[in-house]
């Protein structure tokens, strides 16, 4: 049984506290260490004061915090802002040039892994390989819900990875893509807004059954559902969509297929109860599947704060859950 995985956290977990000036960068690192992370991911656009570059002053801070709290950056979260120009998308040449700047920043921070997004096209990704090798940074395309390890878009990247044979191009699956139940915070917020539980259940049932979103919307309107259901419905068909439990084994098999190319895992979570169980993402099954492989990288905990309540407590619970599952 594979027990070589390491547990880390992205400082994005503390995004709400950071935006409210309750935590500065140092406090985010300290909280990640207190929660039990042995390394952290930094999202450049969120926490680098001189983004997209990194200053000597900031590198000094990172070093000092590592001495103080015992943890440093292991992964750099890059954003691929293809739509940053007002008039047109960036070209592949421009996207590649910007991503090389990201490699320089990741390298300066000492990160061996960098998260990239699928706005970077497969052909630009292919051209990145020699630069990634020079900087010794492994670049993984994030597989984020609604994408899955076997969705057509991800297969295009797989083709490039296999074609180049580069050890520096790969994937970073985000476990949100294995959701098998509705997003709990969105459900809770809808109830608070006055949506009836029976209507939420009706929406979820239609989603499980594969009903088209417009048809689902019409049926909910017909049933006199509160208009606030529309936001939840959008999520159910968008970035927090879910599959049925019966589909899970095939999804996990898909992940195992690309596992040789996975540099890191993003352990997404939205809500964990006091028993440290995630409400919609089946962690026991996911971790069991990874244990059957030789993956020895970081499991990076990633809290998405839909409740705007801050990530401090939930991150502790998520790390506890992973520690428990890894030790079983």
């Amino acid at each position, binding site marked *: 049984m594979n027990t070589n995985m390491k547990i880390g956290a992205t400082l994005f977990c503390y995004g709400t506290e950071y*935006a*409210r000036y309750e935590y500065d960068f140092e406090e985010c690192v300290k909280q990640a260490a207190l929660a039990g992370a042995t390394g952290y991911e930094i999202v450049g656009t*969120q926490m680098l004061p001189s983004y997209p570059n990194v200053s000597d002053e900031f590198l000094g801070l990172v070093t000092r915090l590592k001495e103080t709290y015992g943890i440093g950056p292991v992964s750099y979260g890059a954003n691929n802002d*293809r739509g*940053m120009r007002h008039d*047109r*998308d960036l070209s592949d040449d421009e996207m590649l040039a910007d991503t090389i700047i990201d490699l320089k920043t990741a390298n300066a921070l000492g990160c061996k892994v960098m998260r990239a997004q699928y706005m970077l096209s497969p052909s630009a990704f292919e051209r990145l390989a020699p630069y990634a090798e020079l900087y010794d940074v492994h670049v993984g395309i994030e597989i984020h819900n609604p994408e899955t390890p076997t969705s057509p878009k991800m297969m295009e990247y797989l083709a490039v990875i296999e074609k180049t044979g580069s050890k520096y191009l790969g994937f970073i699956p985000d476990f949100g893509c294995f959701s098998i139940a509705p997003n709990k915070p969105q459900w809770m917020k809808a109830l608070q807004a006055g949506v009836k539980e029976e209507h939420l259940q009706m929406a979820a049932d239609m989603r499980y059954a594969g009903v088209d979103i417009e048809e689902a919307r019409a049926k909910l309107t017909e049933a006199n559902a509160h208009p606030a259901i529309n936001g939840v419905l959008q999520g159910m068909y968008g970035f927090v969509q879910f599959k049925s439990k019966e589909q899970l084994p095939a999804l996990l098999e898909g992940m195992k297929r690309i596992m040789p190319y996975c540099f890191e895992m993003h352990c997404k979570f939205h809500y964990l109860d006091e028993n440290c169980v995630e409400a919609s993402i089946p962690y026991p099954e996911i971790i069991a599947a990874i244990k059957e492989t030789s993956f020895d990288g970081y499991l990076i905990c990633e809290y998405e704060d839909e409740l*705007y309540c801050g990530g401090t407590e939930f991150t502790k619970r998520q790390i506890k859950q992973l520690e428990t599952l890894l030790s079983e």
Partner: protein
Amino acid sequence: MAFAMRMQLNEEIIKKDSFKDMYINNKRNGFSFDVQLGYYRGHYLSDIDLLEVYIDGEKVDQEAVTFAYRNKELPVYKLKYAITEFWSQVEPATIHVIKKGGLAKGNHKIELKLMLRVPYMNIGPGHMYMPLDSGDVLDVRVEE
């Protein structure tokens, strides 16, 4: 308005305590206030699709509004070309508004319309990105 994402992590987008009069040649002739980007990450200024200021529902002439950040003060029309100026979400920018004579005595509603593109969230064919609404409204009382 069509759907736009809103992610107000911090209660204040316009920082209430930052509102102050602007003086031109020692006379009150406008005001300024600080704005924090309402999102989890920063943006290039070129992601700003719309920036307008309204006083009691009336739009201020665009040339009288500027956006100041890290020692640069830009007229609004230049924001879309600012592809190298990155606005950190924890460093507020300052909006300067020229208004001859300043605000009259009494209560006023200052509205900032601020729309951005989320430049990695492609929502359709071509150059279509998720709109982000980072606008805010501030009630101001002028005593004299």
